[in-house]
């Protein structure tokens, strides 16, 4: 099969406008004859479900939480980008496009990224109209802040709770459509398979998490908005339930998985405190606007931070990257933090942390100003660590945060399975090898509010409205498949818990396929992952039955998929013999220790095709063509 990204012809800036004009439309009276399934109600899913329902389609939406309002998007802190140029500081659609392409280390598709920058401004209008209380200036106009990887202020925010406010906006639009009877909402439901009939996605199979009932749902198109897979590392900043299951099951049914090894390690997280640790907490990157990152110049300096004089501190980001200083992109900030810790200059009891210091900001602007900007983040830090960051610098360390990889999609956000779409973090589309801060919220809402409603309509317009009943043989087959997996898991009755396996594999992934990778480590990791997976299927212990709320069974189903995904991530990291963005191969670095990208050989998207259990996957390459930006060495010096 040949990958066709379906990029429209024409000038970059005109592609989307022309495409919108060219797409086929479903006539208003016919829209109600089409059913669309939206899995996931985070920013991408809630906005898509609401917008499609407003247009007149019948939508069925699913989430595994008890309410659509609790999707992982709720936890996003720092903000959302948009090329409004409200600050008159030289921003434009083209600049946001360029920053995103460059930030992604030239591994994203130009046309998609341009469209993202283009629709970004409408997102802010939409959210304000919904009543999202963004931060404002005294004049009553919207306020902006700057974020890593950019030299303009284009980030809109709602204190440190931007994701919450945006999601509640999308949730309110979704709620309105539920009340109108246009969206049927299924909570506490987990999608476990996609049903494909005559080559097209025609439905899903779900498990009701309260009753255990396996149910089929039929539709004309299926949208996966199921978020990222950062929890493959066990410890990450993702919510506990975030998982890859929906995307992975779709992958096994024919959807290619793109760039799985592109993961983002966020530089400012609260360090691990012990073995009991269940997740990591992010301190918003916006803190780097005012906080200064440093470690002692000397190795093993165990003095208290306030006892270390100025001249014995190394503000390593300011020193190495004077133009961007503490605001270098995430991959660079993270890797440098790792480097100084590897040199033995890390701080805190574990030595795996660097300082993020606000003393200068407090001196310059007063504690009150700092409190107004970051109050809730400082409180959260104090609650978790028991230390007061107004008096002591924060201790931070990088942690897994976001996955740029995901299901391969074309310009229309359709996967390689016709009728199956992927939106938001679940797809691979816009961030290349590294995502800029405040761009995930933008992408999720762009996909859901402004892209999918057009492109899904184009697909539906060309198909008959005939429905397929859920007693069709393919639905039954998929149900049997799911039931088979569940009864297999329940019958093992081994001696080790699901968390045991998840932690074990997570550590392997972090140590060998995390912030830096090399061929030797990856080879070892692959072998270990296979062993862990084999043992999992022989020795996992699950108590309870399928027919009731069973938290261990839920987790086991997710971990089983993470185990398979992990191997593909390793293969992908192995085959990409270059360093770019978040993917750093020890073997490919410049003499100064920066990423050594290889555009001649690797300017492509790696899209993997599943070929069967325990068989190596096929690699398909989508060559990336850059016509509007010059490929350059990414420099933030």
């Amino acid at each position, binding site marked *: 099969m040949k990958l066709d990204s379906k990029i429209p012809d024409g000038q970059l800036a005109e592609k989307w406008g022309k495409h919108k004009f060219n797409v086929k439309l479903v006539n208003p009276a016919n829209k109600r004859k089409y059913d669309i399934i939206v899995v996931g109600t985070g920013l991408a899913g809630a906005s898509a479900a*609401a*917008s499609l329902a*407003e247009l007149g389609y019948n939508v069925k939406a699913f989430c595994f*939480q*008890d*309410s659509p*309002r*609790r999707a*992982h998007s*709720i*936890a996003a802190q720092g903000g959302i980008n948009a090329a409004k140029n409200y600050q008159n500081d030289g921003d434009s659609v083209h600049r946001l496009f360029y920053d995103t392409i460059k930030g992604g280390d030239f591994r994203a598709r130009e046309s998609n990224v341009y469209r993202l920058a283009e629709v970004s401004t409408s997102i*802010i*209008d*939409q*959210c*304000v*109209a*919904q*009543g999202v*209380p963004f*931060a*404002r200036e005294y*004049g*009553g106009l*919207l306020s902006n802040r700057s974020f890593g990887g950019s030299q303009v202020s284009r980030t809109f925010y*709602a*204190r440190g*709770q931007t*994701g*919450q*406010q945006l999601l509640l906006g999308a949730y*309110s*639009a979704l*709620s309105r459509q*539920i*009340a109108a009877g246009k969206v049927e909402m299924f*909570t506490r439901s987990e999608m476990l398979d996609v049903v494909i009939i005559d080559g097209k996605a025609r439905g899903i199979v779900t498990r009701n998490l*309260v009753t255990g009932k396996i149910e089929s749902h039929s539709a004309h198109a299926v949208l996966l908005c199921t978020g990222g897979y950062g929890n493959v590392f066990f410890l990450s900043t993702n*919510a*506990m339930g975030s998982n890859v299951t929906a995307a992975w099951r779709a992958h096994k049914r024919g959807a290619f998985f793109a760039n799985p090894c592109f993961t983002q390690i966020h530089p400012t997280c609260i360090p691990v*405190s*012990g073995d*009991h*640790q*269940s*997740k990591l*907490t*992010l301190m918003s990157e916006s803190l780097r606007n005012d906080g200064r990152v440093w470690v002692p110049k000397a190795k093993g300096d165990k003095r208290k931070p306030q006892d270390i004089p100025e001249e014995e501190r190394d503000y390593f980001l300011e020193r190495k990257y004077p133009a961007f200083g503490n605001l270098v992109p995430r991959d660079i900030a993270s890797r440098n933090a790792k480097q100084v810790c590897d040199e033995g200059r890390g701080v805190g009891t574990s030595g795996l942390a660097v300082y993020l210091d606000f003393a200068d900001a407090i001196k310059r602007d007063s504690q009150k100003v700092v409190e107004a900007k970051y109050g809730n983040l400082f409180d*959260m830090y104090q*609650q*978790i660590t*028991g230390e007061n960051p107004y008096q002591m610098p924060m201790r931070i360390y990088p942690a897994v945060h976001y996955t740029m990889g995901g299901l391969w999609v074309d310009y229309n956000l359709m996967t390689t399975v016709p009728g199956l779409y992927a939106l938001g973090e679940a797809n691979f589309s816009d961030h290349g090898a590294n995502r800029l801060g405040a761009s995930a919220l933008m992408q999720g809402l762009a996909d859901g509010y402004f892209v999918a409603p057009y492109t899904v309509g184009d697909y539906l317009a060309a198909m008959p409205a005939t429905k397929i009943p859920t007693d069709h043989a393919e639905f039954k087959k998929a149900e049997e498949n799911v039931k088979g997996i569940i009864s297999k898991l329940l019958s093992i009755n081994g001696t080790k*818990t699901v*968390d*045991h396996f998840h932690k074990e594999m997570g550590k392997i992934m972090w140590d060998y396929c995390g912030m830096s990778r090399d061929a030797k480590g990856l080879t070892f990791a692959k072998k270990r992952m296979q062993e862990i997976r084999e043992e999992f299927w022989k020795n996992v*212990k699950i*108590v309870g039955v399928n027919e009731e*709320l069973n*938290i*261990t069974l839920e987790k086991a189903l997710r971990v089983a998929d993470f185990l398979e995904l992990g191997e593909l991530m390793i293969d992908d990291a192995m085959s990409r013999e270059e360093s770019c963005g978040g993917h750093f191969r020890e073997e490919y670095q410049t003499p100064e220790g920066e990423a050594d990208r290889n555009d001649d050989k690797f300017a492509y998207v790696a899209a993997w095709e599943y070929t069967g259990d325990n068989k190596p996957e096929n690699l398909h390459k989508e060559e990336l063509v850059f016509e509007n930006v010059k490929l350059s060495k990414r420099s933030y010096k």
Partner: protein
Amino acid sequence: MKITLKVWRQKNAQDKGGLVTYKIDHVSPDMSFLEMFDVLNEDLLLKGEEPIAFDHDCREGICGSCNMVINGKPHGPLQTTTCQLHMRSFKDGDTIVVEPWRAKAFPVIKDLVVNRTAFDRIIQAGGYISVNTGVTVDANEIPIPKDIADNAFDAATCIGCGACVAACKNASAMLFVSAKVSQLAMLPQGKAESKRRVEKMVATMDAEGFGACTNTGACEAECPKQISITNIAMLNREYLSSKLTSDYVES
């Protein structure tokens, strides 16, 4: 630390349920309250017993999933969410009683997990501004004084956890409902629908079986997001004025 836990166990909605005692002796003060439950659940699993079911997701105090009544107080001794509570708030040797939210409108599903979909239905009744995607003006064409935007933001930070209901002797949902009503009533975008909104949301709240508000203030005292009781006063004003000049009446 050594901790004795008395945890509500209830197999399903039909089961009567009761407190079961567990002892854990390897608790670190740096653990979060939920991480202590993780440790206990691992122990139970290895013994072949069913782990304790509880709701949680973000573990950052923002999704509103976690909901335990700890020693009689929703979310425990601090004014924070259960997931943000750490064991350093307890002493070695403490006995801690953990129960689910108790309210007619929040029936227990299993152990500490309750059904809070009544909150979603209240929002569906009117907790939104009716605007379709794409039908908007430029964001800066709606200037909003900073103070009003800040106050609306404060109300908007409700996480929908339901601690206010669990704290109230009448199991009233007034704090939750008033937070949404006043957020939208304060903003110019929300004014057009404000009467209809407050009437529909209050009617749904009553129909879902939440109790009446008698102004005890217990909700505000237990709310992890410091949602202010002045929102309730604002709701009452909105409700009264809408009843007097109603352009919408629920039949």
